[in-house]
């Protein structure tokens, strides 16, 4: 493969005068299956092979993707990419420049305890069916259960014109469990995800019994929940909600491409944006976590990036292009979903650092508010408006957790809300998820429990 990629880089640089060129070849093998109730819908396996070529010519990007390793197809694609870049550069006002990074040569192997390729498909079917069984048998009000399973293994081959050559194995194991419950006219919905880059051993901790019960219990408990009151309230957010909040509400604004696009963080570097108990990281180096990897798709090593330190914005997430603009170093956040897509700035494992409060201490001073434990979706806007849907929440009444509420969501302005975080817990959890930004990236989000003095709660009907 090295020779194949070498040829691409050589043609781009020598023949077309590319300032920068990179080639990524991938060999991927996926196994997927879906179980609905106790029925296996379809067992699916597939091969996806292809090459992505990205070049910078005259300060503009050209990109080509083909599902082939054939030399003549790749040669065509290289010339296409270079010509596309030249065409794109026709109206360019500010040519793109890139920060250089150290050229690495490496071979990255994965060392799972249980390699999904060595687990017979029958075992994967058994695991997913057992999850479904645990969900459905939890309570007769549970009406349906869907379990999706995916494992992806393969190798990425990366080369760029700065002299990097990296062969990196990829391994992901993921499962999503959705349950619905019904009683009279009340419908509830609950979702859980499992995800790991370690191996199939993730199911030894997140066993079918554990995840099945977690999904089913929530769906059933929500049946007796009431809609929350709409308005502004003090809230305690659980690690799962804190995670999606730091990811959606803050993290996206700190992706340097979006910062440059006019996010509210644009002029905030070095300034205080949050209360001093808030420290936030985006870390690609946590072993086995769903958002971890050794090198990003520009060949830059992943690192632990400090974004907010004691309330002050100290860093952003960069690729080679934004790093040059900010006169910073690339942070290893350039990720491409596969060979069909270009690397863009994505989060990895994003979390708020724990401090010193217990959950009881966070709750005890609240006369009336909400405890939001688990989220269902979230989204942010460049102006800092965020929304996080809640799939599991409770009232807090006189310092104690009270009755469940359903279909709540929270919203506000990210920076205003970060200033209102007045206490941070000492516990810590990291949850796997998938993030969409035109492409899908596997990530983790998390943190401890936190208290926010005031946030807008959207009530049910």
């Amino acid at each position, binding site marked *: 493969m090295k020779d194949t990629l070498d040829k691409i880089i050589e043609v781009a640089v020598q023949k077309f005068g590319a300032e920068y060129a990179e080639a990524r070849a991938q060999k991927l093998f996926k196994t997927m299956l879906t179980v609905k*109730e106790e029925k296996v819908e379809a067992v699916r396996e597939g091969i996806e092979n292809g090459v992505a070529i990205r070049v910078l010519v005259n300060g503009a990007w050209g990109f080509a993707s083909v599902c082939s390793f054939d030399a003549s197809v790749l040669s065509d694609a290289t010339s296409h990419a270079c010509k596309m870049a030249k065409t794109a550069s026709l109206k360019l006002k500010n040519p793109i420049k890139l920060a250089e990074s150290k050229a690495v040569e490496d071979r990255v192997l994965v060392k799972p305890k249980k390699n999904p390729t060595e687990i017979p498909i029958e075992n994967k079917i058994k695991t997913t069916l057992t999850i479904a069984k645990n969900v459905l048998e939890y309570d007769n009000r549970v009406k349906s259960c869907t379990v999706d399973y995916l494992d992806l293994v393969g190798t990425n081959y990366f080369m760029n014109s700065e002299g990097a050559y990296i062969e990196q194995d990829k391994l992901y194991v993921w499962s999503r469990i959705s349950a619905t419950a019904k009683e009279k006219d009340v419908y509830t919905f609950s979702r859980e995800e499992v995800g790991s880059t370690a191996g199939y051993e993730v199911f030894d901790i997140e066993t079918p019994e554990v995840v099945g019960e977690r999904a089913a219990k929530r769906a059933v408990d929500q049946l007796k929940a009431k809609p929350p009151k709409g308005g502004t309230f003090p809230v305690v957010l659980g690690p799962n909600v804190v995670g999606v909040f730091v990811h959606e509400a803050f993290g996206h604004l700190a992706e340097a491409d979006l910062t440059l696009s006019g996010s509210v963080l644009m002029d905030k570097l070095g300034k205080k944006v949050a209360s001093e108990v808030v420290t936030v990281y985006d870390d690609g180096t946590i072993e086995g976590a769903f958002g971890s990897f050794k090198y990003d798709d520009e060949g830059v090593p992943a690192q632990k990036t400090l974004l907010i330190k004691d309330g002050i914005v100290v860093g952003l997430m960069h690729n080679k292009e934004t790093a040059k603009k900010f006169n910073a170093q690339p942070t290893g956040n350039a990720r491409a979903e596969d060979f069909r897509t270009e690397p863009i700035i994505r989060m990895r494992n994003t979390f708020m650092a724990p401090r010193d409060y217990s959950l009881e201490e966070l709750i005890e001073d609240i006369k009336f508010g909400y405890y939001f434990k688990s989220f269902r979706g979230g989204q942010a806007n460049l102006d800092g408006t965020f929304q996080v849907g809640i799939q599991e929440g409770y009232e807090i009444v006189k310092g104690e957790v009270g009755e469940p509420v359903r279909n709540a969501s929270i919203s506000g302005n990210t920076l205003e809300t970060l200033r209102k975080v007045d206490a941070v817990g000492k516990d810590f959890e990291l949850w796997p998820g998938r993030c969409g930004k035109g492409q899908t990236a596997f990530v983790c989000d998390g943190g401890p429990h936190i208290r926010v003095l005031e946030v807008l709660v959207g009530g049910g009907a």
Partner: protein
Amino acid sequence: MAVLKEEEAISLAEFAVKSALKKGADEAEAFAYEGLTTTVAIERGQITKSSRIIDRGLGIRTIVNKAVGFSYNNILTDKASIEETVLKALKSAKASKPDKNWQGFPATKPFHQVKNTFDEAICELSPEDLVKAASIMLEACEKTDKRVFPVEGGVGASYLARAIANSNGVIGFDRGTVIECSLATIAQESGEVTPICFEFNAERLYKINPEWVGVEAARQAASALRARRVETKNMQVILAHFALQQLLYYTLMEAVKADCVQRNQSALQGKLGEKVASEIVTIHDNGLLDGGLRTWKFDGEGVPQQKTTIIERGILQGYIYDNYTAKKEGKESTGNAFRAGYLSTPRIEATNFHFVSGKKSPEELIGEVSEGLLVYSVQGAHSSNPASGEFSVVATPAWKIEKGKIAHAVKGAMLAGNIFEVLKNVLALANNERKIGQLVAPWILVEDVKVIGR
């Protein structure tokens, strides 16, 4: 890589089916897909990149003893690689469990004619042509208002082709084109930043209007400045195209899927013939819509696409089916088996979900509102409860309407409710129908929506 000809695509699919039967499948089906997309992208006020993506592959479903196996491959260089894929699909089927409800692949049925889904002119566009269209859009945006910044956008042209064959003799080939231009903008003024505003135009034929997209994306962002908070109260709300698409996609479009109905996941279960919406609401799923973004001759299983009535004057008339869910009820598929290229087995999705429009102009609709909101887009619709239809979202961008006129932009307002209540409270429909993803709809005016301000 030259595009596959009709005969080539069909013969690949037929070869896979024959090979599967020979190797022991009870039934087999193959779906070939090819997509060729050229794009020019705008980033932060300028055209910065161009790309060309060719994707092609074959997905094979085999049935062994009523168990389904599926495998796909994107290297279609030789017969050996297809045979290998067939063997994997067989292995998957053998490892899987029998499904007693499996009643076979669809039988042959004549396809209907579709109109305005392919345009040779789109295939012939060069990257230079796309750069030109993107420049027109960008310049139109910049000229409209100096406070507006074009954040990202672009122009993309695609050629898409699909072929299918199954062991019941179904054979089909269809090709189509799509061209799209889009622009996301924000406006900035004395420290205030607006939320992202977005406009786009997607068509099957080469008749997009990039200038309109540029002007409109700029106008929206500029008018989203000086946003103010609103009171918490129930009021009338006009849901514009994007807002309606986002809210319906995660609720109503889920609730009408036969799979959700059969599995007790739909609030519309058992409500056929009942009033589920205001009597001015009529919705069809029209897989044959002239120039529709989801119009094809056949669906992901080779069943002819068709027009299916979902709601007629407020009364629920039907659900959408694939072959499996239809046979389970002794019915015929409505041609709603959707495939994401060659990578997946079919699942039920709406085609062109057509919310039939009314007669009022958008201005007349606004004129009818004494106090309410005009909502262009919502944030967080994907966190809706798909089973119950309940949602809790942020309206952004949105404007306050007072005494029939736009008063000011609104900041941070949330909408909460249940989509099935919203459908019952539809007061009026505009005449400004548009295609947004699967939805084809006008603006709708709804009463009594809970707005949470501050």
